[in-house]
Each structure stands twice: as structure tokens, then as C-alpha cells.
């Protein structure tokens, strides 16, 4: 039994071993002698090492409570908690249960971030540990924002228990067979396309959510502080330019994850979940994109090994994943446009990275200096030619998961069919109907690819909607090519002999035969073709 920490009149007294009629009087005298003559305002009884307490011991606590109203018992093991509950102590005073102790020794590390590690403790559960001494507050914060995100529609995991791990705390999550996207990209390269698609879909989902005011902090202020510190390391004029460019980025009440890299998105069975929610905030998407750029490219620009060590896949994969995700996020394959946005994103990235390495030196001074010099030169080059960080955000319709936008090129046929089939399979469409629909989709898509923008090329979109009872599938093709109404095309004469028949004209005809309904409209410079098929 000991006491410590008397700052502010708060006394913590450790109760140890057994307290029963044999030693209760002795324990009481000991406690009182320690408190005697002190300015005691509150008492915490730490029961973590207490094995047993009898009614004689409980009476000691009652007498303490009479003198000092503010008395708390902490770290109470389950057996003693039961005793305290039965005797009504839990209603008379604050009694806190002991945290379950979890050992992570020998457990597989499935994730590691700046603030701690994630271990798999058994088949279904993982524990996230925190390096920070103030872990409990952090855990509490993360639980709150995760709950908010879940309510607002983000698929995420919420911790169900807080446990002791060594000297710190951890939060426990149920994650059945979870595999991070980093692991998928490193070990299952054939799932690359899947990862890009799901990664971008989740990102769009997050960014489409409007957060009620005051629920989450704004990320812009934090970034402004970082770039302001970086500005001091730049020539005065460029430093001022950096700060004013960031300041000019509009505020937004849309959700930002804040640390959106592939370790923080996991596949659980066939469900994709977002984890690590402690950086959740609101802001313009550029503040999300720059962190993504850092994770995939920025941190490892000087030393490519960094991304391999952190994500588990090589720098080339990381760069390709960043590029393809940005392309899909913006809904464009126009390299000039992607580059334009990337440059603006990099401007914020270096503004953040230079501050970061200044405040977190690795110990290898020469390497840090070389890394910083590289980032600075890139930033100076960008600041020399950028006048704004604004770029066109993908429109609301781009966030529609049932809409696919791509270049009207026949090489993209498989992407279009995969997109359609995924949705049909989800609706239990009979195989024969699915095949017929495939034919119709192919015919229309290839027609647009060949003729709409000929001899050039352009964009088109396909929206798939399933609705009604009995279920109907609606397919809407939109392009900005030459006005063309396929319904006006004359049907081929199918009674002619092989010699007389023309090669061509069959596609539209088959589509008309297969579909239950077809409508065409030309509006706002767009060909809009709608196909409907009963499932």
C-alpha cells in the first residue's frame, strides 16, 4: 500500500493484496497517517493490485468516504467489482473497472502508423495501441469520430473495448479476417484494379458527406500553420505566395479522412471498411489529396525504400496507384488535367513535408538535409509557376456509384461490361438475360466508340439503375458526340440471302430486339440513349 502524487490535493492510494479483519485496522491507520495534516481534496484508491477485500476492509473505505467526499476506486478487478456492486458501493461512489490486460507479445503486426501499432490478437479481433501517454483521451476521441462517421454513412469499425497493453492502452476492434489494401497490393497484384476502384469509391463517399457544423475540426487551419512554418525556410516572396495560395483554398463542410492511404482501408470478407479515424476532419479535397500524395510518393521521393518499408509494395506500384486513383477520382484520363491537379496537390504536400521533417528529424542529418533540399527545390519550382490551387472538382453525379464515366474507346469494352455485370449479378439476373443485356451494351458502346467522336475521341458515361417490381434494369448512355438517333436507323432486311446481305447494321437491330424499351433524346449537346430490360 502506498500513496503518491499530491499535486492539487489529489491523493492516489494503492491498495494491495488482501484487506480483511486481520489487517483492516492496520491498513486504516496507515492510510490516515499518510493523509494526516495534508490538504486532501480528493482520494483515488487504486485497486489494481488488490486481490480480496472483506466487509472489514469495506468499512475502512466507508469511513474514508465520510471524511473525504470525493473518493474514487479505480482499476477494480471483476471479482471485487461484483462485491462492490452487491454491497451498493458502486452507487455510493465512483467505481471504475480494471481494464482487461492484453498482451501483444508475439502477435502479428497488421498495421503501423505514426501514433502506434495495430496487432491481431486472435482470428476475429485486433487491438490498436497508442504510443502517446495521453492514450485514453485519444481513444475516446477516435471512438467519438468513428461513431459520427458511421452515423453519417461511412463503413467503419468501432472499437468495443478499451484494454491495457503494457504501460499504455489499446482499443479493441472486431475485424474478421481483415486484410489491408496495402497487403492486397503487395501480395495479390491481380487485385490491383479492384483496389483502385474500391479505394476511389470510398474516397468519393467520404468527400460526398456534409458534416454538421462543429462536429469535426477544419483541416485548413492545421495546414496553414504548417505551411506558415515552411514559408520561413523559403525566400520571402515565395514563402508569402505559398501561404496565400493555401489561404485562398475555399473552406468546406465536407468530410476528409486525413490519412487516407492503403493501410487504412481494409477488406473484411467482401466488405470494404475504413479504419484509423482519429484524423477525421472537414475541408477541401486538396487537403486529403496532399496527404495521399505524401503517403504514396512524397515521403519516399528521396529514398524509395521508405514506401516499401511502410506499405509493403515498391515505389513504382505506389506511384502508379496514386496516379490511377487520382485519375479515377477526377473522372478523367486526360493526362494534362491530372498533371495540373497533381501539381497543385504537390504544392501543399511539400509545404507540409518540409515542416514535418524539420520537426521530426530522423537522426540521420545528412539524409534529412538532402530530402529537405529535394522537396524545397520542387516546391520552389511549383511556386514559380502556380497562381492558384483551385481545380474543378468532379460533379455530384461523379459520386454516383452506379455511374461509370470513361473514354469512348472500344478497348474499354471489358470495363463497361464488368461494371454492368457486377450490378446484374447483385440483382440475381438470370444468365440468359444477362447475356442478352451484354450484347445490347456492347453494341451501343462500340457504336459510340466508333462513330460519336470520329475521327477523334471523347468521353461517355453509362448509368445503371435497378428498380421496380418486377425488377427492371435501366441503362443510360450519354455522350457529347455528333447527334445520332439509333432508333431512326432502318432495320436490315433479314430475309435476304447471305450474298445480298450487307455486313453491318445488325448491332442496333439486335439491341432493339433484346431490350423491352429504348428511348433517345438530344439535350444540351448530349446524346442520351436509355435502354430498359425486364429482369
Amino acid at each position, binding site marked *: 500500500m502506498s500513496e503518491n502524487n499530491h499535486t492539487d490535493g489529489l491523493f492516489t492510494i494503492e491498495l494491495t493484496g488482501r484487506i480483511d479483519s486481520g489487517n483492516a485496522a492496520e491498513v486504516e491507520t496507515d492510510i490516515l497517517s499518510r493523509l494526516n495534516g495534508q490538504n486532501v481534496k480528493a482520494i483515488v484508491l487504486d485497486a489494481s493490485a488488490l486481490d480480496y477485500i472483506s466487509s472489514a476492509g469495506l468499512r475502512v473505505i466507508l469511513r474514508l468516504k465520510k471524511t473525504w467526499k470525493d473518493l474514487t476506486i479505480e482499476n477494480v478487478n471483476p471479482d471485487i467489482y461484483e462485491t462492490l456492486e452487491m454491497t451498493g458501493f458502486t452507487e455510493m461512489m465512483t467505481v471504475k473497472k480494471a481494464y482487461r490486460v492484453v498482451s501483444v507479445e508475439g502477435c502479428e503486426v497488421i498495421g503501423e502508423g505514426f501514433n502506434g501499432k495495430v496487432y491481431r490478437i486472435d482470428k476475429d479481433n485486433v487491438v490498436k495501441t497508442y504510443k502517446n501517454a495521453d492514450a485514453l483521451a485519444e481513444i475516446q476521441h477516435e471512438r467519438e469520430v468513428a461513431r459520427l462517421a458511421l452515423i453519417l454513412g461511412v463503413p467503419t469499425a468501432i472499437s468495443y473495448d478499451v484494454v491495457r497493453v503494457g504501460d499504455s492502452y489499446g482499443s479493441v476492434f472486431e475485424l474478421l479476417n481483415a486484410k489491408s489494401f496495402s497487403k492486397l497490393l503487395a501480395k495479390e497484384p491481380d487485385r490491383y484494379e479492384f483496389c483502385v476502384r474500391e479505394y476511389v469509391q470510398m474516397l468519393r463517399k467520404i468527400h460526398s458527406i456534409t458534416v454538421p457544423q462543429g462536429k469535426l475540426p477544419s483541416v485548413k487551419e492545421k495546414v496553414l500553420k504548417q505551411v506558415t512554418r515552411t514559408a520561413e525556410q523559403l525566400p520571402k516572396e515565395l514563402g508569402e505566395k505559398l501561404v496565400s495560395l493555401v489561404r485562398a483554398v475555399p473552406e468546406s463542410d465536407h468530410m476528409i479522412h486525413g490519412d487516407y492511404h492503403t493501410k487504412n482501408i481494409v477488406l473484411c470478407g467482401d466488405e470494404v471498411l475504413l479504419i484509423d479515424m482519429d484524423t477525421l476532419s472537414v475541408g477541401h479535397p486538396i487537403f486529403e489529396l496532399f496527404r495521399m500524395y505524401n503517403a504514396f510518393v512524397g515521403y519516399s521521393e528521396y529514398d524509395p525504400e521508405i514506401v516499401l518499408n511502410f506499405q509493403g509494395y515498391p515505389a513504382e506500384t505506389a506511384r502508379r496507384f496514386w496516379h490511377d486513383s487520382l485519375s479515377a477520382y477526377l473522372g478523367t484520363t486526360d493526362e494534362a488535367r491530372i498533371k495540373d491537379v497533381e501539381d497543385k496537390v504537390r504544392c501543399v504536400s511539400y509545404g507540409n513535408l518540409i515542416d514535418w521533417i524539420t520537426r521530426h528529424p530522423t537522426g540521420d542529418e545528412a539524409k534529412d538535409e538532402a530530402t529537405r533540399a529535394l522537396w524545397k527545390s520542387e516546391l520552389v519550382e511549383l511556386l514559380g509557376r502556380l497562381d492558384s490551387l483551385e481545380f474543378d472538382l468532379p460533379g455530384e453525379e461523379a459520386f454516383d456509384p452506379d455511374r461509370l464515366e470513361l473514354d469512348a474507346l*472500344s478497348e474499354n*469494352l*471489358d470495363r463497361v461490361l464488368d461494371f454492368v455485370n457486377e450490378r446484374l449479378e447483385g440483382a440475381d439476373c438470370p444468365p*440468359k438475360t444477362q*447475356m*442478352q443485356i*451484354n*450484347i445490347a451494351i*456492347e*453494341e451501343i458502346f*462500340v457504336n459510340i466508340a466508333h462513330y460519336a467522336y470520329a475521327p477523334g475521341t471523347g468521353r461517355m458515361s453509362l448509368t445503371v439503375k435497378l428498380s421496380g417490381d418486377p425488377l427492371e434494369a435501366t441503362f443510360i448512355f450519354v455522350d457529347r458526340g455528333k447527334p445520332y438517333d439509333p432508333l431512326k436507323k432502318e432495320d436490315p432486311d*433479314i*430475309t*435476304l*440471302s*447471305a*450474298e445480298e*446481305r450487307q*455486313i*453491318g447494321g*445488325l*448491332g442496333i*437491330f*439486335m439491341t432493339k*430486339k*433484346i431490350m423491352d424499351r429504348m428511348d433517345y433524346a438530344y439535350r444540351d449537346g448530349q446524346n442520351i440513349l436509355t435502354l430498359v430490360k425486364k429482369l
Partner: protein
Amino acid sequence: MTIEKTKNGTELCLSIAGRLDTTTAPELEKELKDSLEGVTSLILDMGKLEYISSAGLRVLLSAQKIMNRQGEMKLRNVNETVAEIFEVTGFTDILTIE
């Protein structure tokens, strides 16, 4: 799509499996162009063909036109869904389906 080729004198048999669509039809077209010379009997085994779009139909039509001049062309083992496409497009009347 995969194409298996068996040649017996002037008789050529092609077994076509998988999807015959915009992407794969040019392969079949090339195969026919390269191997029809001197062939008097062309047999297309469609037992493993799962899918055909107009791009595939066009290749079949031009093969039929060539074979009308130099012999005959027959389709074997056409499954129900493919047969339906032939029906809708009037191909049942211009192809010989066994």
C-alpha cells in the same frame, strides 16, 4: 476466346470457345483469312461458344459468303442462347446449322 483448328484434306474444323465479341472477332476473322484457301468444307463447332455479338455475326456472314463460292459451311453444336441470336437476326436462314 480460343480457337482450335483441325484440318483433314480440304475439310477444316474450327472449334470456337468463349466470347465472340468486338474484342475477339478480329482474331477469328484473321484465322479464317489465313486458312480458308483451298478449303471446300468448313465446320464451325460452337459447342463451347458462350456469347456472340454483331461483330461475331459479321465474321460468320463473310465466311459464309466465301464458302458459298468455294464449297460449304456448317455450324455444329449451337447452344440455345446463340441459336436465339441467329433466329432474331435471320441468320438461321442463311447459315447451315446442324
